[in-house]
């Protein structure tokens, strides 16, 4: 891809982000509920207190002016102060982001490791018992609510068997110095195998819960694409050439079948961020999703706006990444 194309793609981001800013801002402004009232709750208050809070939150300004200020500040990376934490929103989001990214990546890894081999086997051994089991399993995986599945895992592996911890990222006493803020990576940097394994035990249940739906979906996509690819002329030709079965499946069929899988995986990674909200709550995972849900309920406008923009940028970026991967998998595709 030429640098010019890259710049063009990046420029396309601008109207997307602007549009999203307008929508999020308007939605928050139009949703009933007053953050000042929510903050004060039932306890003693008076008009002077409400006014000073409104001023501190910047809510004393007209909506249009608030929006212009928000845009102007957002361009410089300043998203304002969280209404309730009374600290910069950027700082708060950055504190929570590594946990969410780590969980998402591990879920993605689990999903891919489970889905692609199963999808290939199901396609190659079509209508076998294994294929049927995998299909039924993926139906279950797609339709099972993450919340419920997570609680079931906790009851079995934490409460009954005591194998895995209920919540958190790492056990107390296993802490490692924060370098990348990805606990698994930091444990390796510190050379602490025990901490790494402990962090792995902590992330296992949330990652499986989060990755389950994705694994099921990817498996179905891979299977369909593989079935299609295996029926193509070039596969028949490759077989006729006398290439080994493994080589035909691996090099010829799978490589082409992976294109839709990669697209779905990239787009679904974005939705993993959304799914995080539930999984993070169930497993007490200190990520961004939980923070955003709380922020929506408490009408914490600056936090919600910044987080939604971040989600949007992530989505666009992942789609871009999917496009790049196409060109690797299929050199005929040009960006």
């Amino acid at each position: 891809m030429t640098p010019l194309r890259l710049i063009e793609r990046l420029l396309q981001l601008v109207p997307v982000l602007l549009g999203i800013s307008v929508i999020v801002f308007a939605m928050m402004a139009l949703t009933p509920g007053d953050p000042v009232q929510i903050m004060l709750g039932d306890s003693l208050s008076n008009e002077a207190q409400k006014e000073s809070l409104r001023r501190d939150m910047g809510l004393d300004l007209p909506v249009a002016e608030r929006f212009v200020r928000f845009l102007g500040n957002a361009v410089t990376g300043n998203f304002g102060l969280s209404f309730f934490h009374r600290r910069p929103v950027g700082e708060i989001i950055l504190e929570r982001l590594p946990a969410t990214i780590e969980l998402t990546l591990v879920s993605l890894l689990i999903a891919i490791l489970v889905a692609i081999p199963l999808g290939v086997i199901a396609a190659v051994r079509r209508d076998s018992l294994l294929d049927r089991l995998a299909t039924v399993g993926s139906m279950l995986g797609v339709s099972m609510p993450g919340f419920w599945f997570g609680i079931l895992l906790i009851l079995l592996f934490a409460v009954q068997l005591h194998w895995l911890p209920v919540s958190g990222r790492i056990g107390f006493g296993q802490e490692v110095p924060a370098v990348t803020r990805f606990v698994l990576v930091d444990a390796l940097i510190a050379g602490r195998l025990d901490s790494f394994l402990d962090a792995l035990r902590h992330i296992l249940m949330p990652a499986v819960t989060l990755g389950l739906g994705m694994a099921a979906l990817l498996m179905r996509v891979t299977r369909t694409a593989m079935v299609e690819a295996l029926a193509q002329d070039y596969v028949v030709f490759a077989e006729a050439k006398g290439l080994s079965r493994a080589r035909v499946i691996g090099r010829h069929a799978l490589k082409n079948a992976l294109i839709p899988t990669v697209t779905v995986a990239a787009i679904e990674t974005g939705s993993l961020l959304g799914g995080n909200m539930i999984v993070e709550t169930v497993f007490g995972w200190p990520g961004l999703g939980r923070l955003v849900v709380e922020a929506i309920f408490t009408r914490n406008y600056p936090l919600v706006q910044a987080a939604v923009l971040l989600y949007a940028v992530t989505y666009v970026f992942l789609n871009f990444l999917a496009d790049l991967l196409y060109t690797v998998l299929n050199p005929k595709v040009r960006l």
Partner: protein
Amino acid sequence: MTHAVSRVLLAAAIGLVGSAAGAAELRVGYSADITTLDPANHRSRVTEGLILNLYDALLARTDDMKIVPELAESWKQIDATTYEFVLRKGVKFHSGSEMTADDVKFTFDRLVKDGAMGGQTSPRKSLLGPLKDTSVVNPTTVRFHLAEPWPILAAYLPFQQVVSKAFVEKVGTPAMATQADGTGPFKLVDWRRGDSIILERFDGYYGGSPDLAPVGKAGVDRVVFKIIPESASRVAALLAGEVDLIDELPVHSIKQIEANPRTKVLATNGTRSFFIPMNNTRPPFNDARVRLAANLAVDRKLIIDRVLSGLATPLNGLLSPESYGFNANLPSLALDVDRAKKLLAEAGHPNGVEATLDVANAFKDVAEAVASQLTRAGIRTKVQLWEQTTLSQTWAKPETNGRDMVFQSWGDGALDPVGIFVPVLKGKDRGNYSGYANKDVDALLTSADTEVDVAKRSKMYQDAQAIVAKDTPLIFLWLPQDVYGASARLKNWRPSPRGVVKLHDARVD
């Protein structure tokens, strides 16, 4: 010689290992993360509950809600608008400096002066009513100056924790959100945002209020608050032995926790009353007879036993029986369906009335139980679900919202009528969803606001309750208990009626 040295070393090593293994650590499964560690920069009970482990206040509350001195040694009223506090000597901040009158003045200036928190104004300012200034008399004496008489100053001082002037000036208000230097029984080790807050015993602790036994240092070496927002996961963590104490134990898990030999249920009266405002500004509930009928139609005891596992106290009025100014002689509102039907007929509704009960999702179950009982007595009630914030906004103006009834609650940690009776029942006040406005009640409440004589003020509130009991603008319901789950190894900790988890007394086996 070498032998002796190695023996000493060995003994030291064993001693170290022994003390590390024997360190008493208490883990708490906490339902929400705190928003800040700055005692002056929040309005959240969850946050305050944690901060109370790090910071002490001038005054404190006993378990039976008596106000006692904490960082103050004594206090007295000088005149209608001046109070004097003598401070305890030898109280140390975690950083080692001694607390003086300057710190107290700085703390309260920061709370009540506009823009005193790095340009912003404390959200806790109005919790100090008309307090306008604090002056230092000598290093151990401060005076509070009020703009007008405010009899409940002492009741609200346990909500304000004293900070160190030197520390705040050194780190600045933004850093106060994540750092702490208090006078409390524990000091901060680490706050891992969204995950946990780790505290350890402060060995320089002065011991706490002499009126709150046991006096002395904290009973455990380390406390870990683990944030576990989902209640099923919190219960699971307790059952799995990962935590020793959880807050907000859901009612449906009580049996499970009670049945397990390693866990127990702890409960205390909460400070949040539940009630149903009827829209007094429009038919059918503008008729006092219909409102009384609704009150007589509800079987509080049955709902408490069946839906709330018995963990609530039925109310004939708005106030908790533990509140200052509680009137114990209000007429009973025990179930009487026949009388309710008769009252409806007298009010011109022999065939009953139709009504809608608005409720936020969280309280759907109890609201439906109440609705079915109202329906049985002839007030045919449909339940409508709302999102909490939208609901509050709709009911802020009952005279124009066209609605009938709403399921509401109001919390008041100070247990003074000013914090609950006034906002809910004074005409046009901020929590008055019923639209009730009674001149005599309003006059009594206004006088009580500035009445300094404790007995006279109490009498005013009791009279106001008697009038409200005749008008029954609300369906009075109950006062739920705050329910905690604990492991059997947790000793010496009782839930506080203030609804905060202060762990100074707690021990673990």
